């Protein structure tokens, strides 16, 4: 019970902080003071209280988009285990539902973007759906591999039953898997090298350009949803990458939070040291990730 409460509370409150951490890290690299850690929260509260501007071309789809997206992501939250604690909701086959919930979210973000009739947002939507379509097989290869490792069909089991032993046992395939997952993580959350969240040239954007026209609370919802998504996928990643578990529940929560923060730092580092890829290179990288995960699967099967 307590775990559930912690789980949900953590999932709802913690995510924006990751963005703050990433920002700080990048600032540090740039030798700037940077915005405070809690800046994302300020932004959100600001947006919630701001008025909205709607383009005449838009319909109810534009307004519904962010909400459905958020709902889908929140549903996903309930399925993912944090730390070594089972997810509040967990049933056989939930990992497929998990994957498809993001599909739903994507669908609505994309049509909301198209609703504005702006060429840029259409462009963004096209890129978003195409790239994540390429990321899809990677995710499933990874899921099968993990499922086979843990002999289970529930996300909780798959992600919590991994132990450091897995690293000793099937180190190579774990390595490939983690690599593939990290790439997917960056791609899905449109971070550098796939997309630059705070560039100002719309032509180069992917995710950001889709939400150009959203404003006020709706925009807040979108930012919040993006943070949640980063958090969830991050959680999946760290559960696979660092399957460390002390028997103690609270300690595990602590470890988890530390892991997440360090992940955020890692992302920040990557964003500071790497440049954004050329648009045409992105598919190649994604396909590469797919191949990695496929190899991982083969190694496990062997």
């Amino acid at each position, binding site marked *: 019970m307590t775990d559930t409460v912690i789980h949900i509370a953590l999932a709802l409150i913690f995510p924006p902080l990751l963005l703050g951490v990433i920002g700080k890290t990048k600032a540090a690299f740039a030798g700037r003071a940077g915005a405070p850690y809690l800046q994302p929260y300020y932004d959100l509260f600001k947006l919630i209280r701001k008025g909205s501007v709607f383009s005449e071309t838009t319909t109810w789809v534009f307004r519904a988009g962010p909400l459905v997206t958020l709902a889908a992501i929140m549903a996903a939250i309930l399925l993912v285990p944090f730390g070594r604690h089972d997810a509040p909701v967990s049933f056989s086959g939930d990992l497929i539902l998990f994957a498809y919930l993001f599909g739903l979210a994507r669908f609505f973000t994309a049509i909301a973007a198209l609703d504005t009739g702006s060429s840029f947002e259409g462009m963004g939507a096209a890129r978003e*759906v195409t790239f994540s379509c390429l990321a899809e097989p990677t995710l499933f290869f990874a899921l099968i591999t993990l*499922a086979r490792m843990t002999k289970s069909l529930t996300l909780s089991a798959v992600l919590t039953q991994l132990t450091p032993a897995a690293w000793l046992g099937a180190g190579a395939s774990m390595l490939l898997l983690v690599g593939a997952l990290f790439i997917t993580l960056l791609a899905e959350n449109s971070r550098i090298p796939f997309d630059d969240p705070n560039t100002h040239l719309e032509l180069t954007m992917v995710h950001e350009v889709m939400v150009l026209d959203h404003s006020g609370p709706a925009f807040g919802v979108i930012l919040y949803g993006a943070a949640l998504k980063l958090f969830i996928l991050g959680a999946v990643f760290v559960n696979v990458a660092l399957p460390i578990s002390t028997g103690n529940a609270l300690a595990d929560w602590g470890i988890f939070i530390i892991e997440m923060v360090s992940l955020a730092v890692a992302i920040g580092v990557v964003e500071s040291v790497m440049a954004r890829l050329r648009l045409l290179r992105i598919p190649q990288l994604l396909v590469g990730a797919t191949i990695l995960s496929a190899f991982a699967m083969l190694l496990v099967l062997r």
Partner: protein
Amino acid sequence: MDLTIEPAALLLTAAAVLALSGAPWLVLKGPVSGQRLAAFCAVSASLLGLFAAAAVLAGSPQTVYQLGWTLPFGHALFSVDQLSGIFLLPLFLVAGTASVYSLSYWSAREHAGARKLTLFLGLFVSAMVVVVLARNGAVFLMAWEVMALSGYFLLTAGQKSSEAQRAGTVYLIATHTGTMALLALFSLLRVANGTFDFPAPHSLSPMAPAATAIFVTALIGFGGKAGLMPLHFWLPGAHANAPSHVSALMSGVMLKMGVYGILRTVMFFSAVPAWLGWLLLVLGAWSAVGGIALAAGQRDVKRLLACSSIENIGIIFVGIGLALVGMRTGSPVLVTCGLGGAFIHIINHGIFKPLLFMGSGAIIHGTGTREIDRMGGLARRMPVTSPLFLVGSLAICGLPPLNGFVGELFLYIGAFTEGITSPLPVVALAAPVLALAGGLAVITFVKLYGIVFLGVPRSDEASSCHEAGPLMTAPMALLALFCIVFGMAPPLLFRLVTPAVGSYGGVSGGVLEHVGSLVPLVPLMAANLAMFALVLAFGAVYLRRLRALPVASGSTWGCGYLKPTPRMQYNGTSFSELAVNLLGMLVSPRRLKPAMAGAALPRDAAFRYAVTETVLDRMLTPLFRVSGMGFSFIRKLQHGQMHIYVLYIFATLFVLMIWTH
């Protein structure tokens, strides 16, 4: 309900009523009355049929009916089992809705050919009913051919455009060539069985010499009808050019007849060879990815939907392939998941694809064009059709909380369990393939819905379009309702197919229970409801915020550009261009470059971007051309010189003499 009802009898009655539904109009003078009457007959027959089919699935007795006939092909046997029931459900659902839809979409006032169309529509549907009921090769063939031919007339009746005619010809040739394979198939079955009557289930041995030939001919004949790659070449043209409610029937039901045929053929055998399962799996996967890739690149609403039918057929065959492999390797779970997924998807695709085709019909009816890139902003002008179409699009992408997801879920679970348990789970590779297809489906249908309904109109047709009448929207609404209900309450679907899976796959109740526990149907229902509640809650909150806060409205942010025009929007072609290029090897896209004609100032030129239908454009058409040349060489024999003709006679004499000495 009365437990002593005879479903077969009811179904035969329904078939008869449907067959005759169009007839009265041939004599009735009035432009409307006949069509109304036909629709009424169709709807009542459909209700009857649905009732009967439900009774069958509920496990009511399977009596065998024998009609007396004088043909030398054994006995005219009819019966219905749960396998038939699975196919009858969507059949009658679509038949009823389509006939109502046609009242307004193809009304006698606007279309001269309406009489013919109505007549053949009735024949078409009832022929399909008979196909499913037939238990004798000859009866099956006759019904099959009637179905194929009336399909051709539905496709071409009252359509003068050469494109439609070409599509019709390709369709007719394809289906008739397939029928040749079926003639062989049923002859072989007779050789194996001794009579034209269908063999008893699992009575034939796969080791029999003819068995392989039987499977191959079945694959050619039925696979071609189902639109399984690479025999799909007739499909896009046919579905795109038929009247929309006909496309709905063709895609939603007729394709499934091919699936039915293969399932039925397999059922005759005590076991299936390993290669068949694998082959179906591979072909299914190929069709799934290839079909949706083809769809992604289309510029014509109905062509796009047609190609996505190939994808869905592919998904169904992946399920069947899984099941057959499962039967071979003796893993009942795989069998159940495969069959369950296939059956559920058969029903689902029979609901949302007709919904989409009828939607496209409404669009065409409203705008008068089929080109995606000429549309836009229809959501404002078609407030009813637009959400219904959205439901269909979500369902066909297999996204929760709609019914499309349920079938795919079964397939995933099957692949995953295999991936966990079996020593060498090649089958598990189906999962990533399905995932890829799903991703492409999202691209395709975001494009379709987004470009057609959202944004600003790209042409006068689009801006001057009008909403369809209630007679068209009501059937769509019904289908959409089914999508939502089945999506929200997945256990319902599983309950529908369970008996069929059990009887067909020979799976014990225990295994069914087990799979029921493996596949998260109840949790899914919960999750769907939860999500629904969340959306409602957010909606409420958001609306309150909006009321509380100032809301302005302006033009779309053009990134500093102040005079955006509709033509500056991303259009369908540009939306899918990125993906289509990535899938170049599947669809070999062609750039039709603008010709820079003219003097110093080139005149305005058009840039087109089209995908190739490889089989038809790159293989068959050239083949025909070459064979035509070869023939014309032989035709010189008929040169008109009579003395040489006399020489032929003596040559023949001579040859016959030589032949025997």
